[in-house]
């Protein structure tokens, strides 16, 4: 039996009918066409499927799609336009924090959840925030540097505009 799911995805009101057992990741990728969130382990271990639900990080592979009814979902596609990357994305490019790129959407979402809540984070807080994201290429050092760099830039910007 299918149930109506009404969600705001990356600012767009979206309605689909889904079965109770389906994961948010599956519905995002198959029904809504957002393939930015990745299926890595499908078991909440790797974080490649990370999205934000009402601003909180969620492993979308292990969250029931219907439980997001009436809520706000942000995926990597909603973070920026390709022509104007988010500070986190730009910093990942500049620091060499991306290699194969499969984990990157999840890394960006976890980092965004951190920086939205705590823009003046330190290295320990960055490492803690990325604790649920696996990367098998970079060795993490460059990712951590990139998130710290993005944090600095966001703070500078807040300082000059506010």
């Amino acid at each position, binding site marked *: 039996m299918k149930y109506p799911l009404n969600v705001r995805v990356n600012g767009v009101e979206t309605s689909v009918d889904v079965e109770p057992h389906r994961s948010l990741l599956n519905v995002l990728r198959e029904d809504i066409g957002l393939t930015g969130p990745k299926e890595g382990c499908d078991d909440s271990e790797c974080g490649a499927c990370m999205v934000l639900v009402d601003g909180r*990080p*969620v492993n979308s592979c292990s969250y029931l799609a219907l439980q997001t009814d009436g809520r706000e979902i942000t995926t990597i596609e909603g973070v920026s336009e390709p022509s104007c990357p988010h500070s986190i994305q730009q910093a990942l490019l500049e620091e060499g924090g991306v290699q194969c790129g499969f984990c990157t959407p999840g890394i960006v979402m976890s980092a965004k959840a951190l920086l939205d809540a705590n823009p003046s984070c330190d290295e320990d807080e960055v490492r803690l925030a990325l604790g649920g994201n696996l990367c098998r290429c970079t060795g993490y050092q460059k990712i951590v540097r990139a998130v710290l760099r993005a944090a600095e830039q966001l703070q500078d910007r807040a300082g000059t505009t506010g």
Partner: protein
Amino acid sequence: MSRYFAPTTAAEAAALLAEHGGARVVAGGTDLVVAARGGKHRMPEVLIAIHGATDLASLVENEDGVRLGALTSHAWIERSPLIGSHWSALADASALVGSPATRANGTLGGNLMNASPAMDTGAPLLVFEADVELLSLRGTRTVPVADLLAGAGRTTAEPDELLTSVRLPDLPPATGSAYVRLEHRRAMEIAVVGAAALVTLGDDGRVADCRVALSAAAPTCVRAREAEDLLRGLRPDGASFRDAAALATGAVQPITDVRASARYRRAMISVVVSRALAVAAARAAGTDIAVPANRNLPTVTAGSTG
């Protein structure tokens, strides 16, 4: 044909549980959905998603202590100054669960009702002698956490009962607590073994009261009463903690699994108990040891128990 309900009150959820035998409650989904996707068990035919039942997310403070709604998240517990200062062992435990995403979505009620022997919040709740409220159409009953946990993945709650809240009783002055676990890695980890300790110091500086509980050491989280009995009246020093910790091994029935052998678990129980006692006693004496204790063990503690 699978069914899905999203009640907005605890009463509505209890009525749905009564109506649909075999229904399972899902809150954050961090255990139920993960286990189903991993093939550990099938996804239940009827899902009652309680994340929108706002009366299950309440916090009530009164003269008896504090009552946390079943939907209280690990992230909230980890950051709560109230829990961190009064019921530190629970904050220590919630801060270690899974990843930031697990803690943002995983709930205290879900952690208890999933009843994993390795759950992090179980041992702290045992040392606080916490109890839970179970709601059904027959009414509400109060059950100590010690009586709720029945075995690996099993509780004494009836299938139509909904865990609505957890009560943390008030503690005497000069009391400190801690939860410490052994882990292979720092995120997305399950305790190899874990221990919670609570220590109350008397006016003479000796241990007036103490409680010890273990996780991942038996089919449920368990108290280690022999260790508690030995420690009462002793000075809170490394030698006393080591002697008490050695007795904690008597309370365990460890298993061998992918995370550790039974023999290793048995050997490590005394290490984590000793560490938990040292942090609990230090906190009881007013020393500030940040949550989670596992990441902030005083070096003297690690040295004296290593």
